[in-house]
């Protein structure tokens, strides 16, 4: 048996890193168990000529495609949208694009304003100071003054527009539509030991420059210097409980497959909207036969993605192609509810820059624009560096039939039951996606595109995993309370995207981390009576 700790955090990704850093100033003994490894910047694909190929292999965002021994398999046959994640120090921030928008005030009041979903038990004002603190810790670039948001002050200037951004901005201006520089985790100046962006163009494969705010290079160095222990290659099987029904620690496997028990006074789950319900559902006992913290029956239910559409325009003149970060500008012209559009809630357009040489060929062999044979080279040169566009990231509403359960036969390399995803795209989402494709096509044509292609929904787009251990004040309708503590187990907390009540129509990392900092502060303020 290992030495007991005061706080045990499971997962070293976006939320685990933030909560570890924030709690470090309590001087408690804090341990984080992470099933993956540290990733060396010299291992990232941008160091090699095969950078695009590796994005489809060992640095794919699909755990099933990577299939490394630190990944767990996911049965996603029951979902049109496939799971994306990364298991390692930094978690999903290793492979995310770096988009860093906040939720809007209306995103916390979906039921009150629009009569769908549920309201959050907290609001924008609750999280605002934590958003700002997180922006400083992660080092966010952007521009103040966006009329789509309450005031905020990014800590670095915005990313360059480039040829593609300027082209798209002109199209949006022609239509009179909103756009604004993206809030981004990509540094535009040297910041807290990170180098500024040098436009490698492969943010999704991990940033070899270290410009992108992944938590292995933002929060973790600070947390470790403050005394937090981070133990890698430790895969948690289950959370154990004592006779009083409190969490007593976890059982985990080390890199050699040896089983250990780690005792803890407080356990914090930070494993994302798939990994967290997986552990809770695997943590059964006589007292908790349906999984831990699951008296509501809602652990693993209400899974939300963000249904994505990808829309790309073909232009006559050269644009940025493979150069530059994926983040550039966004539009929230269609964000707030307008029922005349045929759906409730809304979406964000996130514009991109272009494609690499391999990506260009792969995409347009698929669309039929790039032939085999004699016409290949002429056609390729009309495409290369001449494609840009956007994704629409649509708000997904909670529905109990969208679930994470345990697969009956599939297991990881330690024999732990794997998660099984069952998800159906709602009619509201379909209408929103259709609207987004039509409006994006207008914008691209207005920008000068001679042709437009779209994929909707993006099947690979399960980047955002939310809602499967929702927050609320009623224990029969939620898993955690309004400050992240499980209703059923008073020394068990959840700080990842599982606790989202609704998804908003923006990337969740900023809100996940703001919530983690808010919950850490809530714990610190209640240390004397934390378990009451």
């Amino acid at each position: 048996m290992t030495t007991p700790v005061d706080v045990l955090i499971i997962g070293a990704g976006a939320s685990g890193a933030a909560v570890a850093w924030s709690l470090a100033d309590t001087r408690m003994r804090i341990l984080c168990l992470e099933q993956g490894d540290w990733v060396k910047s010299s291992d990232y694909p941008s160091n090699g000529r095969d950078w695009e190929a590796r994005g489809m292999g060992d640095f794919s965002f699909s755990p099933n495609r990577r299939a490394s021994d630190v990944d767990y398999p996911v049965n996603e046959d029951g979902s049109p949208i496939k799971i994306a994640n990364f298991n390692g120090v930094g978690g999903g921030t290793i492979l995310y694009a770096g988009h860093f928008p906040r939720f809007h005030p209306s995103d916390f009041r979906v039921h009150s304003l629009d009569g769908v979903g549920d309201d959050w038990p907290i609001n924008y004002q609750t999280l605002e100071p934590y958003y700002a603190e997180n922006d400083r810790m992660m080092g966010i670039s952007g521009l103040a003054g966006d009329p789509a948001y309450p005031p905020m002050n990014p800590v670095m200037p915005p990313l360059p527009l480039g040829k593609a951004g300027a082209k798209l901005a002109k199209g949006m201006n022609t239509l009179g539509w909103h756009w604004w520089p993206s809030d981004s985790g990509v540094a535009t100046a040297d910041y807290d030991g990170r180098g500024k962006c040098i436009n490698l163009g492969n943010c999704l494969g991990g940033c070899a420059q270290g410009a992108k705010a992944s938590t292995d290079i933002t929060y973790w160095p600070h947390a470790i210097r403050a005394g937090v222990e981070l133990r890698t290659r430790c895969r948690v099987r289950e959370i154990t409980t004592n006779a009083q029904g409190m969490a007593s620690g976890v059982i985990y496997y080390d890199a050699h497959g040896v089983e250990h028990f780690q005792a803890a006074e407080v356990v914090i789950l930070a494993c994302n909207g798939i990994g967290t319900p997986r552990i809770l559902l695997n943590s059964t006992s006589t007292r908790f036969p349906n999984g831990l913290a699951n008296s509501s029956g809602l652990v693993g239910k209400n899974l939300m993605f963000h249904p994505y559409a990808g829309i790309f325009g073909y232009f006559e003149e050269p644009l940025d192609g493979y150069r530059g970060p994926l983040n550039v500008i966004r539009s929230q012209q269609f964000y707030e509810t307008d029922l005349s559009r045929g759906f409730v809630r809304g979406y964000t357009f996130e514009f991109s820059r272009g494609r690499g040489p391999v990506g260009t060929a792969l995409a347009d062999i698929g669309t039929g624009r790039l032939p085999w044979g004699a016409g290949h080279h002429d056609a390729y040169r009309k495409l290369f560096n001449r494609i840009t566009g956007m994704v629409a990231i649509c708000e997904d509403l909670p529905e109990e039939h969208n679930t994470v359960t345990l697969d009956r036969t599939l297991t990881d390399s330690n024999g732990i039951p794997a998660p099984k995803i069952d998800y159906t795209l709602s009619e509201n989402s379909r209408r929103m996606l259709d609207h987004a494709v039509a409006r994006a096509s207008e914008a691209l044509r207005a920008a000068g595109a001679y042709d437009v292609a779209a994929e909707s929904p993006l099947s690979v787009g399960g980047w955002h995993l939310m809602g499967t251990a929702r927050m609320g004040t009623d224990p029969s309708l939620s898993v955690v309370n309004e400050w992240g503590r499980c209703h059923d187990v008073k020394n068990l907390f959840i700080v990842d995207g599982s606790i989202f009540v609704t998804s908003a129509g923006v990337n969740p990392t900023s809100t996940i981390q703001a919530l983690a900092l808010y919950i850490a502060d809530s714990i610190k303020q209640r240390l004397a009576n934390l378990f009451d």
Partner: protein
Amino acid sequence: MDNVDLIAGENPWSAQQRRSLRCLLGRMIPASGDYGVPGADDEAIFADVLTTARPHANHVHDALQRLDALAQGSYTDLDTAQQLVVAETFRAEQPALAGLLAAITVQCYYRDDRVMRSLDMEPRPPFPKGFEVEAGDWSLLDPVRVRPKFYREAP
């Protein structure tokens, strides 16, 4: 033959299969004198393809078997026009296998030095040199800056 045997073997494909594959690559992306680029059947690119294809050896094997079946013999024995017809038939009939072969081929072809230079790319990885991206004209944002706020307040 199962996938494990194919991967473990020194040569996952027979000499004839390798000839068929190389021939197909040349039909997929032929050399171009106009652009000064080799075809995908170039010796160096083909060697890269063989290495890259090894994890997918079983599927490549299936693809080449189907190609020969469509050729009613050896694909390499057909004349160029017939090879093109069979290649298109193969694409239409076996989109998944054809897509796999195309994916492997283009990821090797478009990282070849000669091909990258023909596209005005430096033949190097992105890091550490990086690339230039112009800042752009931020006056484009002026009409948006003067727009009234349009987010909804919520208590």
